[in-house]
């Protein structure tokens, strides 16, 4: 019996899990290997005798050096960070208040409003960037960080609102009723009782919003044009691919450095993040 169970566990659990992990992590490994591989190895024919595509024998940091010295990569990093942080803060603030209102306050058309906020999230950015570009031009915000800081909330606010609304709904309403009887105003109960309990939800929404704006591509590509104003995803692609020449080493070095902050943010808050998505307090 036990032997059979162990056999089943391998077939249904370990082997699929291993394949999944390999499939997920391989691109990151490839990115890493390409970033530290010297150019000579990178551009060698696949049929060359001593070709070793999956590892390198002469790791080098040249690509990182070139990336940091010969391009405006540090500036892109800073741009991306600034834009992501400010638009996350704006979106979290709006999402907190809107999510609370939709989850707790009774007002006419609350349900319709909630649904329509969600529907705006479903409009694809590939359609939305056309009217948004017109607005950006009218306000003369093109080629400034504010073009992105003000457009990212179009998808971040609906996202934060819905995530937080769901989270607020899992918090028993008696908690704030009790606080209101205990002497707090509705706003006071929200700030002193509900928000502290909702920290996991707020953090998840924040992380998600930060990641979405960090990785955003199409608006950044459309609204920014000078090389020094660009964000990492756009800068790497537009400055390191010249015509049909791919600077693979620097491209991958840029991608690697660009994904580190996101990875750090995730691993830092992963526990909060999971509870944020799965519900709140018991009892």
């Amino acid at each position, binding site marked *: 019996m036990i032997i059979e169970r162990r056999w089943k566990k391998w077939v249904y659990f370990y082997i699929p899990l291993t394949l999944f992990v390999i499939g997920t992590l391989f691109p990151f490994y490839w990115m890493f290997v390409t970033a530290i591989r010297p150019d000579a190895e990178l551009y060698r024919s696949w049929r060359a005798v001593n070709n070793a595509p999956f590892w390198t024998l002469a790791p080098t940091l040249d690509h990182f050096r070139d990336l940091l010295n010969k391009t405006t990569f540090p500036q892109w990093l800073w741009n991306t960070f600034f834009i992501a942080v400010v638009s996350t803060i704006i979106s979290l603030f709006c999402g907190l208040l809107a999510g609370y209102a939709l989850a707790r306050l009774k007002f006419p058309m609350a349900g319709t409003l909630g649904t329509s906020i969600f529907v705006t999230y479903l409009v694809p950015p590939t359609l939305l960037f056309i009217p948004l570009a017109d607005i950006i031009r009218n306000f003369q915000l093109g080629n400034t960080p504010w073009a992105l800081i003000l457009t990212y909330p179009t998808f971040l606010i609906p996202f934060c609102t819905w995530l937080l609304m769901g989270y607020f709904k899992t918090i028993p309403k008696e908690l704030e009723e*009790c606080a*209101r009887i*205990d002497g707090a105003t509705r706003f006071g109960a929200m700030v002193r009782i509900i928000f502290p309990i909702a920290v996991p939800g707020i953090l998840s929404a924040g992380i998600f919003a930060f990641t979405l704006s960090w990785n955003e591509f199409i608006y950044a590509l459309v609204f920014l044009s000078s090389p020094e104003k660009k964000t990492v995803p756009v800068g790497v692609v537009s400055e390191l691919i010249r015509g049909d020449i791919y600077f693979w080493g620097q491209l991958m070095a840029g991608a690697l450095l660009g994904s580190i902050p996101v990875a750090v943010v995730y691993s830092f808050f992963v526990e909060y993040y999971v509870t944020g998505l799965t519900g709140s307090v018991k009892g």
Partner: protein
Amino acid sequence: MAQVMLKALNKKYDEVHAVKDVNLHIRDKEFIVLVGPSGCGKSTTLRMVAGLEEITAGEIHIGDRLVNDLPPKDRDIAMVFQNYALYPHMTVYDNMAFGLKMRKFPKPEIEKRVKDAAEILGIQELLKRKPRQLSGGQRQRVAVGRAIVRHPQVFLFDEPLSNLDAKLRVQMRVELKKLHDRLETTAIYVTHDQVEAMTLGDRVVVMKDGWIQQVGEPLELYGQPTNKFVAGFIGSPAMNFVDVGINEANGSVVAEAQGLRLTVPPGRAGGLRPYKGQQVSLGVRPEDVHVATAADPAHLAFDANVEVVEPLGSEILLDVRVGRATIVARVEPSVRVKVHEGVRLAVNGDRLHFFDAKTEQAI
């Protein structure tokens, strides 16, 4: 400490009329219990007193203040919720101190009050813990403690014992009663458990479908229910109801059903005369049915067939069949009867209840 007046109180949600014309005068220091099946409007009434639900029509006075438009925090009340509603991110001490901090009490005063309340409830050692580290009974105590530190004018309890197991519930019930005797604060207590209602309440309000059915002291509700609903709701096991026809024979009033013919005592006969030739509902409590002895008059006795015997130790419950009706009798533990045997039972003539078949009001 204050009296609470509810005047023509109404609550309507979109389609539902949850509370209908509730008039109630809750006296100072009184412990009053609202009881009824779920959806009867008892919790809604309590929540209107707390200020958590808007009032559709009517007035609520606490003390001599009209509180209709006051927010909950200005009503000087404290409430204990069914799920305790302890703030999970605060320690027990902070939970209890929260209301006082919000009211800007000086720190030493807060500390003294929390310590006093903790001592009354026996939770001094728990003050530094978080709610999730407490058992159900301990959380219950903290929730009560959080209410009493405030010294409010009125306590509101919304089914506070429902989440506890049976044994703990009985224990907390006794403690709540002692606490009320000690603090002498007006209390409004909502429950669906009639035993809690009877044991805790100075007076009990029975509600159904948004209407108050009857207000009275526990034994008054038990002894003189004003309608069939109250009669059936209060008491366990519930009152037996049998549909009987009212007739007159030899100058006395007789209630008849298949297998049953009871002569109504002269004292009760007057009210039943107008129902001659009609059906009414006869109500008799299980403890008012006993095994007939020679002392029982023949006109209050009847033959029945035993269907189930439930020996509870201190008493035996007999489920018996009389004609088409099933009746529960609560008899002495010494009685020896077997299932499917016949048994002759008698009722206590003074304790019969009659209800109009249509209006269900007591006759």
